[in-house]
């Protein structure tokens, strides 16, 4: 499709980590904005996906990202006590920790990270990305991500979007 896209290939040496960050609209997304406004340079390894609250992030999203090609997943929310939705971040904490436990069995737990980053912590945002990129670089490529898929059409994409069973298990673990 377009040229020069060699990021994730079979060659280990030209691999750079691919990190997906879920950032809450009120604190961490604004923190990432501040990092930008402050021109704090950090590696282009991360792509930020905006959610309203860190508690919106489902374990299924994390597994989906790891399956699809993420080498690391970051969830960033407001500090405890500062949540725009009172205590959504506390729910996120429980959920992400449960997911981490499940990932431990797969040896993937170090690829998931939860951080509290406020709207004024642009520096922290850039530091977290630098650190996490370094960590993931040491860990190497995510072993479970699916290797190069053939070009798929919309129908296949639809079916491949279904979430595997382990996602459901993690989800279930929250039901107490």
């Amino acid at each position, binding site marked *: *499709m*377009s040229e020069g896209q060699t*990021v*994730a290939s079979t060659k280990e040496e030209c691999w750079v980590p691919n990190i*997906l960050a879920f950032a809450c*609209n009120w604190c961490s*997304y*604004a923190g990432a*904005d501040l*990092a*930008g*406004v402050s*021109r704090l*340079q950090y590696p*282009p390894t991360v*792509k*930020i*996906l905006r*959610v*309203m*609250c860190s*508690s*919106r*992030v*489902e374990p*299924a*999203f994390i597994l*989906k990202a790891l399956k*699809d*090609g*993420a080498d690391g997943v970051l969830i960033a929310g407001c500090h405890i*006590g*500062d*949540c*725009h*939705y*009172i*205590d*959504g971040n506390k*729910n*996120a904490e429980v*959920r992400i920790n449960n997911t981490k436990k499940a990932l431990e069995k797969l040896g993937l737990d170090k690829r998931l990270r939860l951080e509290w980053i*406020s*709207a*004024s*912590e642009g520096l922290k945002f850039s530091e977290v990305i630098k650190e996490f990129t370094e960590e993931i670089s040491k860990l190497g490529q995510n072993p479970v991500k*699916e290797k*190069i*898929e053939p070009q798929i059409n*919309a129908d296949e*994409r*639809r079916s491949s*979007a*279904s*979430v595997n069973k382990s*996602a*459901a298990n993690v*989800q*279930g673990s929250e*039901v107490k």
Partner: protein
Amino acid sequence: MSDNKGVEKPVESKLDQEEKRVGVFVCECGVNIGGVVNTRAVADYIGSLHGVKVTSVNKFTCSDSGQADIQAKIKEHKLNRVVVAACSPKTHEPTFRACIEEMGLNQYFLEFVNIRDHCSWIHMWEKDKATEKAKDLVRMGVERSKLLEPLQASEVPVNDTALVIGAGVAGMQSALDLADMGFQVYLVEKEPSIGGRMARFDKVFPTNDCSICILGPKMVEVARNKNIKIMSYSEVIAVDGYVGNFNVKVEHKSRYLDVVKCTGCAKCSEVCPVEVPYDFNEGLGTRKAIYVPFPQAVPLRAVLDKDNCINCKACAKACASGAINYDMQTSYTDLNVGIIIVSVGFNTYDPEPRHDYGYGLYDNIITAMEFERLLNAAGPTGGHVVRPSDCKEPLRVGFVNCVGSRDKNTNIYCSGVCCMVTIKNAQLLKEKRPETDQTIMYIDIRTPFRAYEESYNRSRDLGVKFLRGRPVEVKEDPVTKNIKVRVEDTLAGEMRNLEFDLLVLATGIVPNEGIGKIQQLLKLSKAADGLLMEAHPKLKPVDTTIDGVFLAGVASGPKDIPYAVSQGSACAGRATILLKNKKAITEGITAVVEPEVCVGCQVCIPMCPFQAIKFDEKVNKANVVKALCKGCGTCVAACPTGALEQCHFKNNQLLAQIKNVFRFEEVAA
């Protein structure tokens, strides 16, 4: 059952059938984006994606011509989804939502991709990688945009009463402006009197007018205004609700006397045998355990400090009106207000714990606020400036600027007002005793506003010396108690050894304990300096990210009095938009339940922080009350069946983005 989760539901609605015609508008933001990201390459690549009918690169997409381009292309290409790749949605999403809405598109058909703050600005030296990342980000946006669904923003009614927290000069101005426009205002102040910090100043720069003489009448005006209800010696302890409809609990601390009966005659203080350091005078001098805060206090009522009271009951005997009530309890009021203005003020930096420049170790080192009270005619010395060690009038006075400001060890920021405070204090002392030798030790002198530079010049003319340099050593002469300062004169390039009778530290502005409390109660953001954060540093300086909550005064950053007063009025103006219209527009982003999928497990119900999910026993289904739902999505993530969805952040929309972060498909192609 759980397979529902994340599966794009094969519901063939009209929306699904409609062909998705996406237009992508890549902004160069001058050179902010264009200087790093190859916007043309991004547009070309995105143009090759399925469903993208047109791409466009603009120098400034937010400009008139940029928006006109979007509107023209919507018409020409019959676009039904618009992706704008530019700056941050936090600032510009409303602009483009309005732009596409004008063309008859639902405003939620806009997808905003941040390729400036999250790309070009942070990868300035990696242009190729930044361009590749921008392609990924825009592709994520394009795929999400195709799945966006129309939503309606809803209107909520606004209760036309206001709450102002903190009755310093900024809060008083807000209250007065709103009251004069006819709105009912509750003015909550934690101290026994309104007036705030300004009531403690002796004179105020640059005109050196008597502070309480200009503030006093304003305080009385507040008290007289029929639309303002002052709640002094009270604190906000709980807030819930949302714009237009905040439920607030106010705690009224007990004064241990009946404010209706008390006349403020202060007969009680005269007989009280207990003396404690007087906080209003910065701990200089004493007050009694029962006292009137200061002569101009509003309300002019006594307050009994129970912590220091020895229960001798002398005050009760002295009180002619029988106002004293030792058993008085803390009481509470519940308020319902439409808007909240936060003007909770600040503290000055305390040099005691670190013993900055020997403060706390040597008697003859005081802070600028303490100096202010010494200058004041109603202060502990009746306006005579004396030094603490021997109560003699000092003839050599040194001033140190930037104490607790512009210092990596304390606070990095400039407190803004201290230069002028020092300049003013030096002038006032010169006026009292012209023979006093005075030296101001500074890093930079900052005098940016009207008549400030003139005031600086005036103190030079009066003979105040200015020495550029920070003291490196401060010692006390054990016999004379004089302060010996070793300081580098950085302009002359030499060390100086100076001796002063009194050293005054210009301490900076720091957050007070109220800021932390209010921040958590109202879910406001704090900036790196610990003060409250505005919604936008330039364009929304008194708004917050919480609709209906505004900020005035030093609580949101160091300010002088005119600036604080302007912000007080600005808040009143911003608030009036809501109070007068009696309605507010809220986001259409809420949770919804798909009843066919809901199994009635009720997992979601305790998850909701706003109690917005109700359980319908009859049909065994959960139900979201839209007016209460704030759209955080926490219930959605908890729902084990996928019956709950968050509008605008639906599973399929987010999964499309996640899927498109990674580019394996293209590599293979």
